[in-house]
């Protein structure tokens, strides 16, 4: 029993340094990882270890995406890596929320986004203000 515990602990402890330095050198990545993360090749060394790990996790199923999706992911990698953690968290939250809308409405999202972009700056500012108001009232409700 104790021996098994010792083995588990040793295995976990020995895996820690490997995780901390996961893929710090671009040449250490597999060919598949290099292909998927090609847009980040020049910046790879500058990324912090947590970001590198996040990217490696993100491209684990890259091969399962359609070529069109793969191109989209790669085209957006650079912008995504420039965002702050809070911006990414906000975007992920919005994505999760929009995934919950019915599929028929979801198909129209692209068009709705085009419409939204055609709004005047004042109208968009009003929408942002409303969003802030909604989130404040939601927070207050949650507190009560």
């Amino acid at each position, binding site marked *: 029993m104790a021996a098994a515990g010792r083995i*588990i602990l040793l295995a*976990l402890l020995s895996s820690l340094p490997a995780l901390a330095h996961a893929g710090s050198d671009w040449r250490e990545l597999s060919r598949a990882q290099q292909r998927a993360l090609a847009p980040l090749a020049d910046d790879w060394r500058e990324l912090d270890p947590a970001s590198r790990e996040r990217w490696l996790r*993100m491209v684990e199923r890259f091969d399962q995406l359609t070529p069109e999706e793969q191109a989209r992911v790669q085209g957006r990698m650079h912008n995504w890596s420039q965002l702050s953690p809070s911006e990414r968290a906000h975007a992920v939250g919005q994505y999760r929320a929009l995934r919950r809308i019915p599929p028929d409405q979801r198909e129209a999202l692209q068009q709705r*986004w085009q419409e939204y972009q055609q709004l005047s700056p004042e109208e968009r500012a009003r929408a942002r203000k409303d969003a802030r108001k909604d989130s404040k009232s939601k927070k207050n409700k949650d507190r009560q």
Partner: protein
Amino acid sequence: MNDEAQFGRRIAGLLSERNGQLDPAVLGALGAARRRAVAASERQFAGVRSPYVAMAWWRTAKPAAAAVLLLAVLFAGDYVNTARTQAVQGEVETALLADDLPIDAYLDQGFRAWLQQAESSSSRS
């Protein structure tokens, strides 16, 4: 007390009485022989571990071993949980990047609110 024990006590008594009458050289030789015999006996049993000693060691180490095992289980559980959360997070981020909508649509603070407003006003009319 049986006969054997009585006989033994008598011999021990006689030996103790005679002890004082022995020549110092003989006493020294006897002392040296005793020390050699004790040392030889210690060497002979040096590698032998009594099961009682092992059990006593285990009794002392048991709480520490249990604590180490508990820590290892907690650590492993936390590690697996974190890894699972991170894997899901990674999948969601990849799905977001692969989505039809651009990243800006998800970064915009007002798009979702505008959508909800537009939906509620269209359902009212």
